């Protein structure tokens, strides 16, 4: 029995295949022109990895901004629930997830079954999201991956606004024009984003066992600064933190399959 989870985000598409409670294939790549094209392609990749045909998938669940535009998905779940369950699958001790995606950040609190208890989302303003990091890296003239490495080399973060991506960008430009060191500007950016995230976590009651997921979680400097800003050490995950949404979707696909087998309505 094989279950598929597809997560079409604003910047990346991810897919996971699950068999007997084990991840047998996973892949992520930048999104294509349409959600459907992204889903088709990323699904093709994981099927190829596992040497399977699409007919062999028992059930597919979609999530992410493009979740409603994938005709071959049998069901869909919100990103919030998927990140909750996916992370729980990856590490059973997790109770709070800080997810920083391309276009939103969310904090999800889950129960001892991986089900959502509470959540907050910041989806009105792009400051602090992956997209704003990308823009700031471009302004700074470095690759996104290097932004973190630059920031890690600095001990003195320069002040950068955390109110709006555009204002952040103006601050960064001013600092650049003044000839400040790129390392310290990069550090200023990661600290500013961490503060932004920390203010979001204040809106829920954090439960012990906090982890971080989403594309931005691969930026070591941002992770370090968030840990400092909220005073915790993140719980590690067994899988790539960018795959949590897709992994959760695959778990939901399995749940949905069992429900349908038991004669529940679809």
């Amino acid at each position, binding site marked *: 029995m094989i279950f598929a989870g597809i997560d079409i985000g604003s910047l990346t598409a991810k897919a996971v295949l699950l068999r007997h409670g084990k991840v047998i294939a996973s892949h992520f790549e930048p999104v294509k022109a349409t959600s459907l094209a992204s889903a088709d392609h990323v699904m093709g990749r994981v099927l190829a990895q596992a040497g399977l045909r699409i007919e062999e998938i028992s059930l597919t669940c979609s999530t992410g*901004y493009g979740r*409603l535009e994938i005709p071959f998905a049998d069901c869909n*779940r*919100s*990103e*919030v*629930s998927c990140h909750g369950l996916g992370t729980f699958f990856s590490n059973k001790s997790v109770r709070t997830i800080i997810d920083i995606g391309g276009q*939103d950040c969310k904090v999800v609190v889950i129960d001892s079954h991986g*089900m*959502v*208890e*509470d*959540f907050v*989302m910041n*989806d*009105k303003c792009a400051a602090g999201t992956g997209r704003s990091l990308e823009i700031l890296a471009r302004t700074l003239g470095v690759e996104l991956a290097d932004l973190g490495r630059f920031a890690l080399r600095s001990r003195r973060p320069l002040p950068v606004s955390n109110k709006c991506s555009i204002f952040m960008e103006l601050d960064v430009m001013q600092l650049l024009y003044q000839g400040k060191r790129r390392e310290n500007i990069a550090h200023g950016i990661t600290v500013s984003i961490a503060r932004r995230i920390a203010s979001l976590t204040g809106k829920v009651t954090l439960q012990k066992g906090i982890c971080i997921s989403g594309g931005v979680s691969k930026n070591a400097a941002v992770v370090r600064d968030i840990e400092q800003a909220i005073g915790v050490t993140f719980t590690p995950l067994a899988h790539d933190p960018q795959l949590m949404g897709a992994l959760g979707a695959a778990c939901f696909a399995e749940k949905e399959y069992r429900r349908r087998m038991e004669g529940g309505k679809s």
Partner: protein
Amino acid sequence: MTIFNEIRQLAQSTSNDYLTRARHRGHPTVGYFCSYVPEEMIHAAGAVPYRMRAVGSEGTSLGDTYFSSANCSFVRRVLDKGLRGDFDFLDGIVFMNGCDHNRRLFDNWSYAHPDTGFNYMLFVPHGRSEACLAQYGNELAKLGRFLEERFDTELTAEKLWNSVALYNRKRALLQEIADSRRSAVVPISGTEFLSLMLAVSVVPVEDAIALLEQALAEIRAGRIHTEQAVLRLFVTGSCLEELSHLELLESAGGVVVADAICLGARYFERPVQVGRDPLAALGERYLRNLSCPRMMDDVAGRIAHVRERVSDFGADAVILEKLEFCSMMSGESYISSHELRKFDIPSITLTRELYGGGVGQLKTRIQAFYEKVINRS
């Protein structure tokens, strides 16, 4: 042919034939804001009360000329419509200090003076005490004198009681339709109910009663919206008039079964008690009806009302609706969500701009909330 098609049509238009016909019969149209302006007084003066709304708004660029971007999108859109001439069919407007944004709407409207007839400001106290009631009585008397002079008429007790009877009838019909959603088989969706409210608050009361009677007949004849809603919702908050927003809530699997909003229960709950003095009776009803967050001394009452209705209508969750920059609902939604948590009633605050974008984000938020509520059960 269902009456709900015509109702939806009325709900989505700024003006309508009913108003035009009434005008030809010598009944001018008077706009009003908020739920604390007694429609009976406008009606008794021979005019048709018209609840102001931003339906059909094209943007805020003209409204932004007078308001800042930190004002709520309701006042910006309504003023914008006014400046575009959409409300030129009105013969006057009764404004109210519902909140600071609405209060300033009066100033800006007077200053920009679109061609909408007179501007009258009704000041309503922010409380329900005896002193507030007495002051509200004075304000109503002043409004009465203004209307008498303006329309060259006399607001006799007889006329007022006659209007009260009509509006009580309208309220009773709305109440009955609203109550029909108590059963497991929901005959009418929240979106349909809101369109009903939008329609009957912009047509003469006599026509409204006729429309409501037809709607009620359909419901009694076994109209079904859904037999088994995934989630039954209670909606409360400030200004909410977008059918598209409730559609979004209901397309994700929920159905709105009860509410405490201005275009909802706040409008029709509790009839005016017939007694000796019509203005006193109106004052008592309007000031002490189901309150909105502008009333400072009734937070507990509002929470109690939500709890009572939630259990009465078998609602699974509460949606707290708030417009960006709504000063009233900012505090209220915070307190409400805390209080409701104590009683284990799940709630979510949805902040939005009136007719705003970001539908994708809102959809995710709503779906996640529904999933969370369903997982509890």
